[in-house]
């Protein structure tokens, strides 16, 4: 592999930087005295030049010469005592050993602790040129973005990218994309719901005025739309009007088939506001009737029981993504953050091989504020 070749060559070069100068050679270093004398000779030459150019007078030049000569004499005396440098085989071998063993060990060890040798370079141009099936999600998103920058009136493009933004947690971008889609394609339930959900995710689950307006627009487009009705109910509940929420949700429940994926969520919501819950597969009519009679504590215990059953079912057979998502939501609604997180973790293990599923789990976890 190219990286390993480069690493070996570089290490070799570093070792050679020590070994090469260590090879036996006659001492060619400049001794202290010689170097000093060279400087003084240059100084004498400069005095001569200045004298010749008329920059200094004869007496000054004489004085300067005397001073330099004095310095030269001093150096000559000192240099006589100064031995020439030598070298010892023992020190040389030790240095060579340090270079040969120490450099690879130290550099290799530190690099493996810090580096990521398994990762190649990823220049942007190459990533953009990669075939679609090899491209990463970030690049796919970017491609659509580039396309939209070039064709800002392609409403379809915004519809494609908005859910992806939701999935990877870029809620602001998602909201903007939905807005553009609505502007270009006209208002419809899907677009308005998307916008509403994006705004909801941005505000951490609070149905803001803008989000509510979006859901209302969705409902105007399709009065039966379950998503819009659910969130409008949630808006009413958050605004402190549980009666109104209960009536919206009860109406929705009446229109909801028993096997709809949002059914359990709706049931939990209904129970929360103390409204009757439709039969099966959640609580039976009797349960719901009982729920109305119950105290708040008992009611919550009943809901808890339902959620526990779901959790149990998933523990036996985990191949149900919607089930897991419902479970996460349910625990979250019940204020059991750690259990919701736990459910998310289990779901991630279950769907470790399925990136799309993982994306949905992560998006929901973010939406619920569970941390990813």
């Amino acid at each position, binding site marked *: 592999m*190219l*990286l390993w070749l480069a*690493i070996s060559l*570089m*290490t070799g*070069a*570093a070792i050679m*930087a*020590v070994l090469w*100068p*260590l090879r*036996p*050679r006659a001492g060619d*270093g*400049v*001794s202290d005295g*010689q*170097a*000093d004398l*060279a*400087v*003084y*000779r240059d100084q004498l*030459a400069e005095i001569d030049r200045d*004298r*010749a*150019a*008329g*920059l200094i*007078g*004869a007496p000054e030049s004489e004085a300067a010469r005397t*001073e330099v000569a004095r310095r030269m004499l001093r150096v000559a005396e000192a240099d006589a005592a100064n031995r020439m*440098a030598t*070298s*010892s085989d023992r*020190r*040389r071998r030790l*240095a060579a050993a*340090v270079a040969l063993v*120490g*450099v690879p060990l*130290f*550099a290799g060890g*530190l*690099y493996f602790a*810090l*580096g*990521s040798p398994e*990762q*190649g*370079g*990823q220049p*942007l*141009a190459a*990533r953009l040129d990669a075939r679609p099936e090899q491209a990463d*999600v*970030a*690049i796919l*998103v*970017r491609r659509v973005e580039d396309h939209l920058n070039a064709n800002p009136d392609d409403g379809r493009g915004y519809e494609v990218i908005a859910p992806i933004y939701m999935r990877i947690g870029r809620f602001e971008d998602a909201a903007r994309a939905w807005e553009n889609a609505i502007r270009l394609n006209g208002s419809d339930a899907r677009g308005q719901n998307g916008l509403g959900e994006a705004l909801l995710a941005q505000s951490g689950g609070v149905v803001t005025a803008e989000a509510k307006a979006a859901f209302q627009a969705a409902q105007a487009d399709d009065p039966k739309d379950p998503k819009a009705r659910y969130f409008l109910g949630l808006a009413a509940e958050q605004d402190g009007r549980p009666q109104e929420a209960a009536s919206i949700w009860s109406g929705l429940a009446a229109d909801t088939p028993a096997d709809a994926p949002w059914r359990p969520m709706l049931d939990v919501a209904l129970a929360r506001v103390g409204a009757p819950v439709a039969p099966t597969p959640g609580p039976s009519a009797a349960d719901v009737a009982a729920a109305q009679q119950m105290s708040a504590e008992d009611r919550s215990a009943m809901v808890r029981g339902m959620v526990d059953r779901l959790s149990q079912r998933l523990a036996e057979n985990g191949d149900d993504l919607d089930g897991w998502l419902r479970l996460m939501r349910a625990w979250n609604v019940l204020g059991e953050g750690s259990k919701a997180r736990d459910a998310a973790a289990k779901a991630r293990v279950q769907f470790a091989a399925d990136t799309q599923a993982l994306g949905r789990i992560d998006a929901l976890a973010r939406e619920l504020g569970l941390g990813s």
Partner: protein
Amino acid sequence: MNPEIGHYALVLALAVALLQTVLPIWGARTNDDALMRVGPSLALAFCGFVALSFAVLVTAYVQSDFSVLNVVENSHSMKPLLFKITGTWGNHEGSMLLWALVLAIFGGTVALFGGNLPARLKANVLGVQGSIGVAFTAFLLLTSNPFTRVIPAPAEGHDLNPVLQDIGLAIHPPLLYLGYVGFSVTFSFAVAALIDGRIDAAWARWVRPWALGAWGFLTLGIAMGSYWAYYELGWGGWWFWDPVENASLMPWLAGTALIHSAVVMEKRDALKVWTVLLAVLAFSLSLLGTFLVRSGVLTSVHAFATDPTRGVFILAILIFFIGGSLTLFAARAGSLRQGGIFAPISREGALVLNNLLLTAAAAAVFVGTLYPLALEAVTGEKITVGPPYFNLTVGALMLPVTFAMPFGPLLAWKRGDLAGAAQRLMLAFFLGLVAAGVAAYAQGGGPALTPIGIGLAAFVVLGAVVDVAERAGIGRVPAATAFARFRGLPRAAHGAALAHAGVGICLLGIVAETSWNSETIIGAKVGDRFPVGGYELTLARLEPRTGPNYRELVGVFDISRGGASVGSIESSKRLFTARNMPTTEAGIRTFGFSQLYVSLGDELPGGGLAIRAYWKPLVTLIWIGAIIMALGGVFSLSDRRLRVGAPKPARKAVPAAKPVAAE
């Protein structure tokens, strides 16, 4: 190129630097020839590995490799190529890598061109350089790794801080680092001398050019930084006494003292201990500057780092090198032989005066910069030491320095004749008085300091002219001879005169700008007309434009003077989309040495824009003066006596000049 190659190269650089610290110094202690020879090859290897590492990082930026965290955080694929490259050091990690690169290049230069250095001195110098290399590569790898990867890679980066997306980033930090790190070489020489307990004659010859080079780069770096802040920040100020600016001013003051004391050492073999101390101080202050800027102690545009581990690491480096070198100095300074005696009134005496005042100024800046930090650390109380403190202290110290400056070069070595020097400066002094008088008359009242400053500036510039004229004998010898002598003067003499004149020119710009600038702050709509310092500006139109990674609102102003149009000026506000950050691009138009400066402010509720317009008389002289100073350094550097020569064949006198008897 694979970023991992750069990462490994940096790791190897650390390994090599460790060996470079140990082996040559060990060789010097045991007088072992072979071990000392290892120094240069390791210094070159260190240079090669750091350069490779830097090249890989630049490549990652150019190719927008967003698998590198540093690139993600500081680049954007739509950025123009130039800013992709400069963005490499427009952030903490990259700028530290640039620091290491400059260090490595200087170490490599010593290794390559140090053939005539005494072997022991060279080994010790390279060893000390190696230890600095260890500190900074370890700092990079352990706390500020520019090669950290992020997988999966994002498709786009966060873009570079828009204030930094400017040609200034291509010039200012590299120049500044060449200056800061250049002092590492003089530092290494000083510590090497202390380790060995002797100062060779070659020592002074090597220290002076390095100090000069570093000083020249630092001068340009500071001037460039000042001009950048002037046009980019939109306030029209060119010096803020900001701690970050002070951090670069302190080594500059110490370095200025160093290049002067090194002259004494080279020429007269005196002031050795003092020169060693200054060399240690100049680099210590450079390190301190790095610490202040890099540790996040200060919050400013420059402080990209807010990670405390980095601060602690740099603090440890600081304590090791400054504490270590000063301890070594205390232990060994006594053993360095003093030499050369001189009278107080002499060239040496003048240079000592210069040194004392410059060091005092550095100390004043040091106290003003660090006292608030220390106070806050100890008592938690926040105080600000502002421009009044610095203007008073530094100003009071620089006034005598500038006044004494023309005298120094006119004094003889060893025993000078002050009266004679004063006599030769009479003309310059008189003309300075005239300039002050003219300034006072033109100003018609106002602070007395202004005419004094103008007069002093003129005196300094003319004093530099007198210096060169005197040396060439202009007026005393025939013109042809004088010209020949002028050309035959040592380049160092020309350099000194130039640098001194540069100080005067800079001072002139500072005094004129601070005393006579005028400011107009106004809310204007399209078509409005308002006066600024003798000119009339009309907001002709406002137009939105789109750049590669920003949108901008451009205000176009027509300039007229006395009814006649003299051109137009464009000023804009930019919004960088990736970071959603605005910048101002001041519109500047130069008339002679003065500038008209317009910057756009916020939109006003009633329509229209807040506009600040300034008339800045002679403001460009501030930076032109600094460039002339640096040019003086270049002249001085090119002087042949500064090159360390192998024993050359005796050279004949320069044929351009015939021997002429001095008077």
